[in-house]
Structures are given as C-alpha cells and as structure tokens.
C-alpha cells in the first residue's frame, strides 16, 4: 500500500519536465472518466473529448498551486474543474442562463443534492476506471483458467456449478479462483487509488 509521501509525490510529478509516463498514466485513468461524466451531463462525445483536454490543460497549469495549498482531495479538485467546465460548455451551447427549462438551467440552479449526485457519478466512474486498470494489471499475473473462473462468475454472473463443469474444475476451486482474483483486484485498485489521491 502506498504511503502519503508516495501519493503526493506522484501527483506532484505531473508538473515535472520528465513526467511523460506519469502524465500518460494520469490521462489513461482520468480521460475516460471525464468524458463519461461529461456525456452523462449532456455533452456530445466530441465536446466531451475537447472538455477532457481542457481539464488536463488546467490540471497541468494549476497542479503547483493545488499542491501548495497542502491539503484537500485531488479527486474533489478534479471534479470541481470538470463540473465547472461542463457548466460553461452547456451554457455556451444552449444560450443564456435562465432562458428556459433547459438542461443548462437545471445545472445552474441545481440543488445541493444534484451536485452530490454528480459527485457520486464522478466517484462511481473513477472507481470503475480504477477497477478496469486493476484488471489490466492483474489478468497477466494469474492463470487463464483462474481468470476465466473469476470472469464467468463475478462478471457474467454464471453459477459456480456451471462454471466448474465448463472449466472441468471442482466447485471449491472455482469459488477460490474468484476470491483470489477479486483480492488481487482490490489490492491493485487500492494502490491505483492511492497513487492518484491526496489525503482528504
């Protein structure tokens, strides 16, 4: 598990000249997240892609000032940037504020629970993305049969007995294969989360 020093150092590396690898990792994790959240709030895919580039540009310019504040959640900061840009984008697309019962108006007049709902969506998408990245890391490390047992039971929802028959394994072996892959995914996702988060 990563300690706080490692976590903040990794975030800080985004702004260093030789940080291309760290930056690629950051974009790999957060670009799909920002695009999905933006589209969920009403943007078209192309606009969401442009918005994601804008988010990353702001992060690159502002990471130093974010770090100098010394506290606060990186995730929450990124969410605020995304949210504000989505509002701006929707405002540009749909006309002036308060001109009708548009999506824009809903956004701009949103009650706290609406904002919380969007923050939850952001968190949900972040967790989904981290889990996907964790799966990419873990899959090559386990036997194909073990991965298949996990995938068929945990993702496809097939019964333990059906998968055991299908793979020619005992039910116990299938149950434990599912557990072993899940445990590794949990650890990998936790590490990923730690690398890209500061203390709250």
């Amino acid at each position: 598990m990563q300690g706080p020093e490692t976590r903040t150092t990794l975030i800080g590396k985004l702004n260093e000249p030789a940080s291309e690898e760290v930056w690629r990792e950051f974009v790999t994790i957060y670009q799909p997240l920002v695009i999905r959240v933006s589209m969920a709030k009403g943007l078209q895919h192309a606009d969401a892609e442009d918005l994601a580039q804008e988010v990353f540009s702001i992060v690159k310019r502002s990471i130093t000032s974010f770090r100098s504040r010394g506290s606060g959640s990186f995730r929450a900061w990124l969410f605020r940037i995304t949210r504000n840009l989505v509002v701006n984008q929707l405002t540009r697309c749909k006309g002036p504020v308060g001109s009708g019962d548009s999506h824009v108006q809903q956004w701009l007049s949103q009650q706290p629970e609406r904002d919380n709902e969007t923050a939850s969506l952001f968190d949900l998408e972040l967790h989904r993305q981290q889990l996907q990245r964790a799966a990419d890391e873990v899959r090559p490390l386990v036997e194909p049969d073990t991965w298949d047992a996990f995938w068929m039971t945990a993702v496809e929802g097939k019964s333990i007995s059906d998968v055991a028959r299908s793979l020619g394994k005992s039910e116990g072996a299938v149950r434990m294969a599912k557990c072993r892959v899940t445990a590794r995914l949990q650890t990998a996702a936790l590490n990923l989360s730690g690398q890209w988060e500061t203390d709250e």
Partner: protein
Amino acid sequence: MIARISNEEQHYDTKTFDEYLHDRWNSDSQDVTIHIENCPQCQRRIENMVNDNWA
C-alpha cells in the same frame, strides 16, 4: 511456516488465507491449496475476508 489454527484441526489462519489469496508463500503451498479448495468452512471464511474488503 504455514500456521494452522490449533483448536480447529485442518483449518488455517487469516494470515495463511491472505498468503493464499495473493500468492505470497514462504513455503510449500500445495497442501494448503488442496485443503482450502476442498474445505467449505475455509472457503466461507476466505469469501468473508474478500467481501469485507469491499466495505
């Protein structure tokens, strides 16, 4: 050294389960794997460990 729970013959402790889940073995794991994959009680405990980590 892989530890069995002393008062429950044939079953293993949480540390061993963790090693089993993450392939972090210090010694021969074959006996442990065979036992766990044939022991519903150990399987339930391992499933509970994994499920608790989602909480």
